[in-house]
């Protein structure tokens, strides 16, 4: 269980994290989603006490992180897989962590096995590791103390598709056993397939949060027509909220905050032909993500939901 209350972090005049509050519940995977520079990593560093907050506070397992007597046994943390001494071997890095936590040496072998690092790979120095191997090592460090909370910043970075699948299954299993899993990503799809709850952050502020089901339901209906302006007018006249999506031309579409059958009836009544009508589900969430975080996006959105 992680509780974050009104967390704010300012660097001079710049507000990196702005009044962020959320809860990550046990037994669930909470996805922390936002574009690069949205404040995800800063929030996570504040939660584990590496960055002092300007105001607000965070608790893990009911206590401030700094008050945990032996944090490695309660909270597994992976903030940056590259933040390791390049001259240590993978096994040595795990051994140092295991000793700090007071764990027996066999835990190191168990974790190496769990993250599929071979004894040969474990004996290599980390400077010779690929990013994917570093992520595996970082996950092994986080899991070492069999913690009940996992805090992982962009854990899928650098993993190949099989590795991403492996990571997802691992986190799912871990949460299913009752643990709290908080993981961040700037890729919606990555989070969407594993998270139960979502916290979407942009420009340091939370722009949406809830269960994935709620956020999907809120996404409404996606509709395409050769006569979009007429359809938009008809829908608006019917009192429905309409948002234009896509870039125009063939990909132009409308997202409507209503069920598909309602939209279909309006179109029928207005005599507008439809080329596509469906629940906006996943695509809608992506649309929402892009919209909600649009002002913080570095690239202007051209191809709608291209990922």
């Amino acid at each position, binding site marked *: 269980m992680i509780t974050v209350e009104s967390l704010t972090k300012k660097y001079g005049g710049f507000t990196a994290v702005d009044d962020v509050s959320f809860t990550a519940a046990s*037994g669930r995977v909470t996805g922390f989603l936002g574009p690069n520079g949205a404040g995800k990593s800063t929030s996570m560093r504040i939660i*584990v006490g590496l960055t*002092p907050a300007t105001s607000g506070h965070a608790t893990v397992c009911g206590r401030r992180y*700094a008050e945990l007597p032996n944090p490695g046994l309660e909270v597994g943390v992976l903030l940056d897989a590259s933040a390791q001494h390049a001259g240590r071997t993978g096994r040595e890095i795990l051994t*140092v*962590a295991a000793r700090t936590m007071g764990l027996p040496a066999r835990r190191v072998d168990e974790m190496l096995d769990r993250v599929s690092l071979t004894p040969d790979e474990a004996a290599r120095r980390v400077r010779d590791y690929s990013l994917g191997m570093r992520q595996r090592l970082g996950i092994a460090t986080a899991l070492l103390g069999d913690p009940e909370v996992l805090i992982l910043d962009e854990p899928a970075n650098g993993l190949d598709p099989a590795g991403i699948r492996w990571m997802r299954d691992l986190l799912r299993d871990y*949460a*299913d056993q009752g643990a709290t899993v908080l993981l961040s990503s700037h890729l919606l799809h990555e989070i969407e397939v*594993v998270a*139960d709850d979502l916290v979407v952050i942009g420009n340091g502020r939370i722009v949406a949060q809830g269960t994935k089901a709620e956020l999907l339901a809120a996404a409404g209906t996606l509709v395409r027509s050769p006569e979009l302006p007429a359809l938009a007018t008809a829908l608006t006249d019917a009192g429905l909220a309409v948002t234009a999506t896509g870039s125009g031309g063939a990909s132009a579409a409308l997202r409507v905050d209503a069920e598909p059958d309602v939209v279909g009836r309006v179109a029928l009544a207005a005599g507008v032909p439809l080329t596509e009508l469906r629940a906006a589900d996943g695509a809608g969430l992506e649309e929402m993500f892009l919209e909600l975080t649009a002002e913080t996006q570095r690239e202007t959105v051209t191809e709608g939901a291209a990922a």
Partner: protein
Amino acid sequence: MTATDLSPTTAATAVRRPARPAPAPIPFARIVGVELRKSFDTRAGFWLLASVVITATLATGATMLWAPDSALTYEGFASAIGFPMAVILPMVAVLSVTSEWSQRTGLTTFTLVPNRARSIAAKAVVVIGISVASMALAMVIGAIGTVLGSAALGIDPVWDSSAQDLALIVLAQVLGMLVGFMLGVVIRSSAAAIVAYFVYSFVLTAISEALAAFQEWFADARPWIDFNYAQGSLFEGSLTGTQWAQLGVTGVVWLVLPMAFGLWRLMRSEIK
């Protein structure tokens, strides 16, 4: 990433992990043990410490080969060994702190031990332990050199250093190492802290020397201002009360205060 992915389990699970007793706090001795291990477990760290032994042996050999016969006394060997140590040991101290930032291992170190003061204190204990152990080793190597050197010349070995002399030299080395540690804490960057150490111990000394040569008032006040100069008394075998006071005053100004400032900042800094 693709549509073929497993669909997630959306049902909220009622599984609860069995409540576990709160873990015991990490004992300080364990943190010291881990920090000691960390100073040996990289190639750089290992060879830096190995170089203490290597240079001590080389200095002993060089003294036997090239020093005039009159210098083949225990003190002669001790001072030959002392110089490389005075350079290497502070580097060990600097790196023990700065590598947490330069190599970014602090991200792990300070999440596993969130009370940074404990980690830093453990490092200080390790650093002091290493300097005392290195000096003990240097004395043994120096003693072997004295015995071998005098045997080669067919003279009696000259033991011209008392236990007090040696204790004061160890204190000087510990102070030098703490200066390196302090600079590591204040600067937190390996390269910059190492440069700062050389400026601190050699450039400042040269400036102080030059100033003392031309300004009489500074020459008089120097023992109260120049920490390196005040430490020089430690190599003379005994200190007067005034010299201890000078060492104390300069030590507070040049070592204790900057260390306190560095620690204060380190506790509040952001670890990235």
